[in-house]
């Protein structure tokens, strides 16, 4: 039997194949797993729509907010939870869609900084607003459509004193408008981590997992920190694609993917926070994943990804019309 898993390409693909798929195949010699790398979650959704009636892919790893759309369109299978014994051990965060989208990794929005500019880690988001960083700030926003932009809005909202982003994001938007003039680029090429590492910029927002990867590959020129005001998590989930063949094997794989073993392996490789509470990590790895710190977890802003879909337009509009233009 061969199943196909679709997911992010690049380093994610490399490490996922190494840390999860190969061990799985070793443990299940009868099942072969092929990995299809795609650009982003939206691409996955596009492919799922295109192959709606005859899917060539069995499972998909993507973002929870996109998973919501997919589930509404009936593109994913609702896996009976009894087929996934490991499901019960997962944290509650991101379980909104039950068997239709199983939390696979957590990641947190972090402050990315150049270690030469900041010999000691800045511990506040306010550092983005520091005038001495004029022109050296990067905010990857994709015109406001990026999850990082959404998360930063929510964080800024809290900083401005408004905890409930569903009710009102004006305070956050106003706050972000004041950072815009300092921003060098809203769409870093190739990515914020590289530009911070090579000195093109001093500071940025980004994900913890990727920054850890760059920390290792750039001789520690770039590092990340989870600031004291708290942060929010991004959640990757895995879904079984509706009408795809080999349901049994697919579910076997998904169950393995959320097992403590697989979670630990991948966390070690990529520094994504495990979703399985039973996962055991060594001290060194754990130290580099803020999510595993109970203290930090407490300070986490709880994002209702099921509501984001409806809010997205509001966020997007604010970014496009107010925040980004304010920086010109």
């Amino acid at each position: 039997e061969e199943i196909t898993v679709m997911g992010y390409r690049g380093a994610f693909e490399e490490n996922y194949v190494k840390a999860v798929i190969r061990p799985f195949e070793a443990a299940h010699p009868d099942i072969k797993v092929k990995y299809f790398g795609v650009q982003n979650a939206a691409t996955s959704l596009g492919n799922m729509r295109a192959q709606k009636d005859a899917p060539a892919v069995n499972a998909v790893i993507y973002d929870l907010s996109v998973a919501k759309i997919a589930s509404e369109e009936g593109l994913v299978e609702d896996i009976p939870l009894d087929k996934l014994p490991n499901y019960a051990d997962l944290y509650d965060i991101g379980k909104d869609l039950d068997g239709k989208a199983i939390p696979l990794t957590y990641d947190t929005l972090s402050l990315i900084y150049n270690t030469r500019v900041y010999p000691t880690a800045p511990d506040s988001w306010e550092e983005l607003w520091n005038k001495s960083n004029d022109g050296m700030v990067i905010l990857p926003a994709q015109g406001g459509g990026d999850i990082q932009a959404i998360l930063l809005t929510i964080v800024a909202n809290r900083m401005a004193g408004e905890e409930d982003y569903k009710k009102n994001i004006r305070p956050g938007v106003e706050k972000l408008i004041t950072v815009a003039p300092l921003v060098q680029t809203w769409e870093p090429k190739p990515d914020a981590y590289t530009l911070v590492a090579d000195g093109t910029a001093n500071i940025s927002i980004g994900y913890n997992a990727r920054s850890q990867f760059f920390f290792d590959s750039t001789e520690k020129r770039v590092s990340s920190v989870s600031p004291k005001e708290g942060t929010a998590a991004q959640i990757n989930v895995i879904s079984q694609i509706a009408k795809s063949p080999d349901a049994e094997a697919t579910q076997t794989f998904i169950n393995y993917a959320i097992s403590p073993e697989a979670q630990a392996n991948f966390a070690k490789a990529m520094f994504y926070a495990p979703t399985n509470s039973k996962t055991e990590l060594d001290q060194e790895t754990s130290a580099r994943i803020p999510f595993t710190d109970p203290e930090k977890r407490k300070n986490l802003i709880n994002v209702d990804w099921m509501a984001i879909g409806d809010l997205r337009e509001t966020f997007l509009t604010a970014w496009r019309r107010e925040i980004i233009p304010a920086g010109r």
Partner: protein
Amino acid sequence: MTAGVSARSTRWLILALLLPMAAVNLLAFILPMARLGMISLLESRAGGVLTDTFTLGNYISFFTDYFSYQLIWNSLVMSFIVTLGTLIAAYPIALFLHRVNPRWRNILFVITVSPLLVSSVVRTYGWMVILGNQGLVNGLLMQVGIVDSPIRLMNNTLGVYIGMIEILIPYMALALIAGFGRLDAVYEEAAATLGANAFVRFRRVILPLTMPGVLLGCLLVFVLAISSFITPKLLGGGRVFLLATEIYDQAVVQLAWTKAAATSVIVLVIFGLALALYSRQSRRYE
């Protein structure tokens, strides 16, 4: 035409010769354009799922959104400036090619249009290397000491202009060179003997005679500029919102096909207007 072929068999022959082309054209041009128009009139549910309901909603939401006008304005301004820029840059090149002796003309012509054969992605990458904070220009400027912190040459509209103008110069040059065919030195000489100095000769003879090429080049570059999104995406720093980048985002990132289709139709309308303007102007210079 050779005698002895009956009209009937000629008809079948013509049909057979045209059929494959017609099929490809139908499949990849006519049908897509029809579908584009149709989808722009369909309603979509949240997340971009298509329904079967017809609606003007996509257009209404486009035209009731202030941001749309911003997009149109940005696109028009950018295309206009880029067109003008390529014209100003390509005109001397075309004039030079027209006047240089034939031995040099061929090699210079090849140099002029050869960038066309280098992927625009590669050339945009080259501009990233040149214009970046750590790039060639800033490196030189800082080394010489003219500036002490990098000046921003990309991640803004300036970068997009520079890249777009450079990438589109060959197209403009091609059109101009074709248009320069009408320019014979004898007209300039005639003007001179009638008392026209160099400036008047340029304004009254050279320019009007090359106007058909200028107009064609402007149309070509305008259309290419208004539909380009790779260079704006790579050099714009997320600041440059254009119809083309919007279509790409809507279609590929947001998967909002109905919106993307409606935006595309708007681009087509602008394209049509440019075309109409072109044919009106070019008739004046025929």
